[in-house]
């Protein structure tokens, strides 16, 4: 689609795009190119000399069991987070879609956690589940659970999933509610006249009609799990205990922080870029579908 009627000027459009272009080139493309370049180089421990090593950094990375564990961990984490947050949000959205009194109030009371920053989410949850002073930790201990996420890696991972899913409920709820409200009421009524019970109606009619929203939200939640949970992990566990909560993004951060292997850190960044590109491509395909549905 193009405008028929436009301005013509030799220099004005360039002036208008200049600020955006400068920022994009200096802070996006240049660092990204640096990361790619760096990933082909090997630097000695003192940073004195570098040599070009082709795919050596990638080979080493992919052969590293630590990295492989982090890949698996990140995907499991994303799946668990998406599943728990989406199912709870869908349940709440279906309830809020009914003609109830005060639905507007419910909506307001459910969407605000979107605005809570990841590190704050981490602090709130670590406070509740801190083994020595957390209220929920005391409760867990009272019912006989040996709760200590500072030592037990699985418990630490569970803690991160809970906190991250908690924050994401509001976002998923909002989009589910919008999706539900766009389903014409007549579809439900027709099914009701045919004698379908509400739960059956949900699985045979509502759920299939919601699939575009569900796919869209799965992608969004995976992106969130990969990239936006950094603040939660950093305040709660800092990747520990014994790397049990080290996701791919957190690994790039902590590997680079120790200043160790620049080439490997860069190779990790490049792989992450590949993942983002894939996710964005998938997202756009589904969004296209959502529009033409």
């Amino acid at each position, binding site marked *: 689609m193009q405008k028929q009627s*436009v301005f013509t000027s030799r220099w004005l459009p360039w002036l208008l*795009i200049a600020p955006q272009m400068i920022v994009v080139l200096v802070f996006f493309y240049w660092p990204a190119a640096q990361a790619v370049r760096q990933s082909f180089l090997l630097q000695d421990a003192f940073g004195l000399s570098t040599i070009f090593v082709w795919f050596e950094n990638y080979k080493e990375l992919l052969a590293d069991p630590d990295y492989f564990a982090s890949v698996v961990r990140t995907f499991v984490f994303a799946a668990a987070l998406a599943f728990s947050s989406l199912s709870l949000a869908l349940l709440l959205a279906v309830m809020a879609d009914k003609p109830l009194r005060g639905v507007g109030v419910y909506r307001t009371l459910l969407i605000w956690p979107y605005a809570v920053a990841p590190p704050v989410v981490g602090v709130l949850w670590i406070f509740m589940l801190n083994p020595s002073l957390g209220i929920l930790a005391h409760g867990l201990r009272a019912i006989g659970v040996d709760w200590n996420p500072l030592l037990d890696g699985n418990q630490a991972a569970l803690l991160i999933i809970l906190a991250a899913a908690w924050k994401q409920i509001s976002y998923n709820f909002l989009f589910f509610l919008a999706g539900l409200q766009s389903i014409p009421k007549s579809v439900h009524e027709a099914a009701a006249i045919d004698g379908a019970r509400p739960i059956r109606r949900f699985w045979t009619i509502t759920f299939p009609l919601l699939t575009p929203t569900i796919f869209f939200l799965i992608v969004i939640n995976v992106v969130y799990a990969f990239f936006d949970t950094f603040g939660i992990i950093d305040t709660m566990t800092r990747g520990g205990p014994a790397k049990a909560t080290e996701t791919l993004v957190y690994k790039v951060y902590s590997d680079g922080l120790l200043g160790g292997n620049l080439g490997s850190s*860069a190779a990790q960044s490049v792989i992450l870029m590949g993942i983002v590109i894939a996710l964005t491509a998938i997202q756009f395909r589904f969004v296209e579908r959502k529009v033409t549905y």
Partner: protein
Amino acid sequence: MVENEGIRRYVAHAILWIGIAIVAFPVYLAFVASTQDNAVIANGQMSLWPGGHFIETYYKTLFVGSSGTTREPVGMMLLNSLIMALSIALGKIFISILSAYAIVFFRFPFRMTVFWIIFITLMLPVEVRIYPTYKIAADLNLLDSYSGLALPLIASATATLLFRQFFMTVPDELLEASRIDGAGPFRFFKDTLLPLSRTNMAALFVILFIYGWNQYLWPLLITTRDDMQTIQVGIRKMIVTSDALTEWPVVMATSILAMLPPVLVVIVMQKLFVRGLVETEK
């Protein structure tokens, strides 16, 4: 059937209230903790009702700072976060409305190339280019500065796309009419396009303000001086690995203060927020 419907409705209300309780409980607990005595909390003897230390804790948090760890008062951090969030939100709107204007209302060579160059930045979130970006910021002397906090986060494909989409729907007749009135590109932008974009800009501002306020990884890297810290970074530095040193009431008061501005924005400007959220995801 009717009776059945009534029960269903009660069930729905109950489930929604349980959901609200799940969502609100951590924050309620944080507030309660911020009004109690540190020793009581450290013993694990915390009460579920607000205590009497509200004024004391919040005064200390805002103007004195936590005594054990960062000595920076949170008032300063709030100011830093505000400056960063406003610069990011306004900066993004400013540079993207200009570039969208150029892309939609002008014909120039490489127009679509420019569009794609901006579009692809969607796929380069700061998390995947942390250290190279840090190095550039350091080379440009941007460490510990407000421009360093804001500039690298200011480019925005989403905002540009949003404005582009909106400008496409502006009828050609408007442009022709203002041309007949003798308006050039500047006047058309100022008198016609800006007023039409007001709602979009407001919705975008709400989303971008929250985005900017909640930034964490970038400020963590680029600020080293205590007086340049944003509140999100400040919170983490207050939590010390050995529990005994962490001043929980102050930490919790800081958490409450950190979430208050963006949460208020969501609640007060809910319509704009929802609109912005849905629009930017397209």
